[in-house]
């Protein structure tokens, strides 16, 4: 049958006649969803008007097609019951039978709860405790796995570790270099303007050296890696949950912590200090270029006075932070990844939470480092 033939059914129409005070409403054409869709806005008010008269006679014998949508439209206009005067084609009789059953009301919306605020707060606290417990458990399992591996070094998942180092470390070099360089330039440029006022030009090396190596390098690199690799880890584990790969591993007796969590933590703990070293170097180059342009400080002078201006302890502190940050980012990424439920929405929420949490944790831990090591490497 061609398309033209199928369209042959005429558009739905409605005709009202009044014979001696008796109202008559004649319906015809195709009263199906397809036919009604374009004409619904004009038909609906007419139908409502007809239905106002309880004694109106409804003649549906000219209706060529009637489907649930059309029938339901009439049903609702009639006030959800059959009207008394109804003329119907026999084949359309059964369609209304289905509606005759009184559908039970569905509580689609939850009733209002007066203690909503308290409940939300309580749930938040409980969920925080729950997350902390789960992280500790994953961490504990990783430690146990590591101890086990030390006894049986043949089982160390080298391939996974090396792949993770490449993904989280080597592939992050470009973006960390770009951001590091720009931050170095900005910091040096702004400091130079202030220092010029006091004639303390040479201190630019101290300011840049201490701030980049001790603080900015590690935190910048950690935030970038948390956004880049943390989200990737969570999404990867989350998709593995959705596709039941995690369950498949569990069935084979391969612990998730051993093959998924531990290699990522090791890889990030190893690559993070290296990325920090790289970011530090590039940021200092940026600062050096800017200092040369602004304050006319020579490259050789800058480099040769850097070791005097910045005690070496700052470098070790920065790299030590890197190891901690790296492990934490991987741990948090894995934790959120393993908790994802098999649906798309949970995947999105889990990935967002993972990134936000790991960046927050990096900054909190950085503050703790600052307090604990306040006497180290300064002055």
């Amino acid at each position, binding site marked *: 049958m061609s398309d033209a033939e199928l369209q042959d059914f005429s558009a739905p129409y409605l005709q009202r006649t009044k014979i001696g005070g008796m109202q008559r409403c004649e319906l015809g054409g195709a009263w199906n969803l397809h036919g009604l869709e374009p004409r619904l806005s004009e038909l609906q008010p007419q139908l409502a008007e007809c239905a106002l008269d309880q004694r109106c006679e409804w003649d549906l014998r000219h209706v060529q097609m009637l489907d649930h949508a059309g029938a339901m439209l009439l049903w609702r206009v009639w006030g959800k019951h059959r009207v008394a005067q109804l003329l119907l084609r026999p084949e359309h009789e059964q369609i209304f039978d*289905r509606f005759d059953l009184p559908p039970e009301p569905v509580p689609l919306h939850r009733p209002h709860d007066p203690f909503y605020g308290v409940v939300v707060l309580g749930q938040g606290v409980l969920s925080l405790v729950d997350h902390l417990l789960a992280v500790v458990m994953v961490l504990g399992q990783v430690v146990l796995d590591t101890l086990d591996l030390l006894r049986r070094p043949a089982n160390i998942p080298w391939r996974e570790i090396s792949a993770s180092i490449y993904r989280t470390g080597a592939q992050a070099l470009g973006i960390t270099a770009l951001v590091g360089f720009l931050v170095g330039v900005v910091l040096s440029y702004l400091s130079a303007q202030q220092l010029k006022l006091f004639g303390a030009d040479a201190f630019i090396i101290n300011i840049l050296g201490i701030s980049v190596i001790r603080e900015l390098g590690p935190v910048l690199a950690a935030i970038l890696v948390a956004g880049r690799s943390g989200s990737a880890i969570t999404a990867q584990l989350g998709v593995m949950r959705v596709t039941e790969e995690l369950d498949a591993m569990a069935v084979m007796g391969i612990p998730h912590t051993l093959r998924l969590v531990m290699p990522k933590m090791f890889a990030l703990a190893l690559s993070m200090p290296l990325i920090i070293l790289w970011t530090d170097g590039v940021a200092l180059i940026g600062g050096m270029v800017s200092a040369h342009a602004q304050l006319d400080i020579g490259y050789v002078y800058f480099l040769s006075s850097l070791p005097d201006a910045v005690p070496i302890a700052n470098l070790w502190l920065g790299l030590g932070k890197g190891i901690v940050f790296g492990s934490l980012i991987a741990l948090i990424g894995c934790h959120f990844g393993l908790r994802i439920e098999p649906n798309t929405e949970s995947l999105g929420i889990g990935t967002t939470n993972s990134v936000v949490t790991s960046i927050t944790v990096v900054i909190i831990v950085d503050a703790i480092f600052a307090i604990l090591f306040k006497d180290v490497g300064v002055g």
Partner: protein
Amino acid sequence: MAGCIIEIEGLWTQFGSHVVHRDIDLSVRRGEIMSLVGGSGSGKTTLLRQMLGLEQPARGEVRVFGVPLHGGDQSRLRSLRNRWGMLFQEGALFSALTVFDNIALPLRELRALDEGLIHDLVMVKLEMVGIEPRHAAKMPSELSGGMIKRIALARAIALEPELLFLDEPTAGLDPDRSESFVKLIQELHRELDLTVVMVTHDLDTLVALSHRIAVLCEQRLVIVGTLDEVVANPHPFIGNFFMGERGRRALEAVKDMVLLT
């Protein structure tokens, strides 16, 4: 040809150098239940996806309701998409939406119906597939596989389609559930005056539902015909498929049923 809902002419499907379909001609008549069978990897689901316009044919043409799926104008295709429904193998319910919203989605997309009418229509569809209203507010992840299939079927018929595609409708259901699902499809087919195209591996489903069967083997369409015609065909694949132990049991069950009625 008159009375044909789907017409496929000289269809070739190719993925890279791998040929899936070689010169396939097939037409589906109005009101019938047509089953596609074939071995694993014989391209049954791909053929179904061709009929839905989800794949691009290398050669040949697919017309549904007389409208060519490729190269036709977009507005006709869009109105075509409101006239068919598809039940995916795993249900493909939107996991972020509740059961109610899943079925209401195609109705809301029309942007013509008011929310009250949509609500009542969704409830009728749920009732038709035998899902109690209390499940309407649940998320798909809270449901069993059988319920997901039923709800996916309710979504497929939400727009009152004339044509329904089913991909492995009974796969993953236990025998009891798959029997009731077959009954449900029969009921809907009768009540809604549907044309059904179905891919299935399950012999019981195949025998119980199909008016005609199309057998795909080695990239070609071996035969299209009624169950008796297909079984009488000497092709070795058909022999293995229907005359194996399982096949004979299913066929005998049908013969018994025919004798009883």
